[in-house]
């Protein structure tokens, strides 16, 4: 693996706004993060599917929670991160921020899809139905459409500066949906159960279930970070293809002589 040595002269954190410097950092982080996610997931699965007892009410179907809850958390927070980087782009016009938002979107969409699918696989044995038009489920479906809309918009519009601007605004407007998802179980009388983990009422589950849930959540987080960094590197390759630094990095020593 090659990466450019980052100059030691510039100490400011702003140097990470440069695609070149950030690419070097991401290159070093991706692989260790992937391994870490794998270890956390292995431990989480062992706890969740072997050590944790069956739920008193839901039986064994509740084990889907160990996949469903981390996927849902990541789906929501990735959207907030996307909105944050979109805001940064709109204020500072740093193109890496827009790329970061675009690198986050597919992983967020995938997590939302997994949240919906694992949720409906849990709903069938527990509620007796795969789907209901309940506030929590509907707002989560809206999140999926927001992600898909953002991806379609940023991929479909050219030039990329226009796509970045339009996508950023969509991401920011859509962010209003995230608190709606989160509080939907409180604001409306929904079929979806309330949070098992909250600041007000604390933890309402067996300690081995909590350990499994925390391990699986950590795994989902670390995986999401790793895969987003990897996608950001691909986006940098796609969008900075014409630059000299990429040419030097990947093109070999003779590049400079091309006229």
């Amino acid at each position: 693996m090659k990466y450019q040595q980052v100059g030691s002269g510039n100490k400011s954190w702003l140097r990470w706004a440069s695609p070149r410097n950030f690419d070097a950092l991401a290159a070093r982080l991706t692989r260790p993060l992937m391994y870490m996610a794998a270890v956390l997931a292995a431990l989480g699965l062992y706890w969740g599917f072997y050590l944790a007892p069956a739920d008193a009410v839901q039986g064994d179907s509740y084990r889907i929670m160990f996949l469903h809850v981390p996927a849902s958390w990541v789906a929501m927070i990735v959207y907030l991160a996307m909105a944050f980087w979109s805001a940064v782009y709109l204020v500072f016009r740093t193109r890496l921020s827009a790329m970061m938002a675009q690198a986050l979107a597919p992983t967020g969409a995938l997590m939302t899809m997994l949240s919906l699918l694992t949720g409906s696989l849990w709903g069938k044995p527990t509620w007796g139905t795969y789907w209901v038009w309940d506030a929590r489920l509907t707002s989560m479906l809206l999140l999926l459409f927001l992600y898909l809309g953002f991806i379609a918009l940023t991929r479909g519009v050219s030039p990329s500066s226009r796509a970045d601007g339009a996508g950023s605004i969509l991401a920011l407007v859509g962010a209003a949906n995230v608190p709606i998802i989160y509080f939907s179980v409180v604001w409306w009388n929904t079929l979806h159960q309330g949070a098992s983990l909250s600041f007000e009422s604390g933890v309402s589950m067996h300690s081995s279930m909590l350990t499994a849930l925390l391990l699986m959540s950590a795994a989902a987080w670390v995986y999401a970070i790793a895969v987003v960094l990897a996608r950001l590197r691909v986006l940098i390759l796609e969008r900075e293809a014409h630059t000299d630094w990429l040419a030097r990095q990947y093109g070999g020593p003779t590049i400079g002589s091309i006229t």
Partner: protein
Amino acid sequence: MSAYSLQELLALNGHGVYVWSALALCAAAIALETLGLRQARRRALQRVLRLHRSPQRSKS
């Protein structure tokens, strides 16, 4: 702490179909995402190399 036999683990008191298909879906999603990214990276790298007409191919 609970101990399962393999049969019990697969059946999960009748909920096995749901639990294991949820797990399989997540595994498939992760496999698709990582493999897709690897392919996208290869394609993007090839384009960079083509753009700069490099005589030698380098691996990342």
